[in-house]
């Protein structure tokens, strides 16, 4: 007899758990307080405003370095999630089995260029990354960040990343 598909809630829960396992394993993402929301395979990164993210206390405005880190983290997690998602979809990997540093390695940044379009306000920031090309060896990613208004970007960036040799494989 055919196996019943898992209830949708269980599937969602396991996928969210896989994402949060990756994100929470990286100390710098935790230090920056960056979170991720998932709709299917689409990710939105959120950087809640904090006083220690400020670079210009007179305005005040977000630090360019905080914005850059936010965008780079968004790109790295997007690339990682895209590969993880594929392995989950094909059934190659069980979402519960994913462990950063064990069967999953992060891509490494080659270069990253940030365009500061307007000053980052003392509010929460959001970002989404788009993978323009992902080959076996390297990937090209662009990423946009906004605050209150989706169509008024405050920063955008593009970068290149070396993809890990073995992205994911089940152990045992």
């Amino acid at each position, binding site marked *: 007899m055919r196996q019943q598909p898992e209830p949708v809630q269980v599937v969602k829960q396991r996928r969210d758990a896989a994402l949060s396992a990756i994100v929470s394993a990286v100390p*710098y993402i935790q230090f920056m307080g960056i979170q991720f929301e998932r709709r299917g395979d689409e990710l939105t990164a959120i950087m809640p405003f904090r006083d*220690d*993210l400020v670079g*210009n206390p007179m305005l005040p405005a*977000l*630090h360019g*370095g905080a914005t850059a880190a936010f965008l780079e983290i968004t790109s790295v997690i997007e690339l990682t999630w895209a590969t993880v998602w594929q392995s989950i979809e094909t059934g190659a990997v069980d979402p519960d089995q994913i462990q950063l540093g064990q069967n999953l390695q992060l891509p*490494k940044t080659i270069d*990253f260029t940030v365009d500061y379009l307007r000053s980052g306000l003392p509010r929460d920031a959001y970002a989404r990354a788009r993978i323009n090309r992902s080959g076996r060896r390297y990937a090209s990613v662009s990423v946009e960040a906004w605050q209150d208004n989706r169509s008024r970007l405050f920063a955008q960036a593009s970068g290149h990343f070396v993809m890990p040799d073995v992205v994911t494989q089940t152990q045992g």
Partner: protein
Amino acid sequence: MAAKTIETAQRFINAIPHSKALGMQIASANEGEVKMQMPYDEKFIGDPATRVIHGGAVFALLDTCCGAAVMTHPSSQGSTATIDLRVDYMRPASPDQVITATATCYNITRTVAFVRAVATDERTDKPVAMASGTFVNGGGK
């Protein structure tokens, strides 16, 4: 002159909450040239498997150092903001080592400053990262 520029640069850094949160310090400052350091911290780890710090932390140091180089330039109008910055990551920074960034503001106009910077760990002959970018001269955005 040098003492005054170091003082100006250190004040500039102390007033920036995010730079303070990352533990950045001025090592030296001259007109349009600033050296800054950021000690290793486990909080900055971007790859738990290797304990290498995240590129974003290096980017933040380079960005701050470039901004400081603009501020110490004799033609600076007293405030600045990044227009764009590119960072090339040449090799992973060795864990437990201090990162040192040196930025040079090599050209400045009435409105725009052009800056480049290099970051190394304790092995100084092989850069960890290099940056190049443009900054607003005066005003901010």
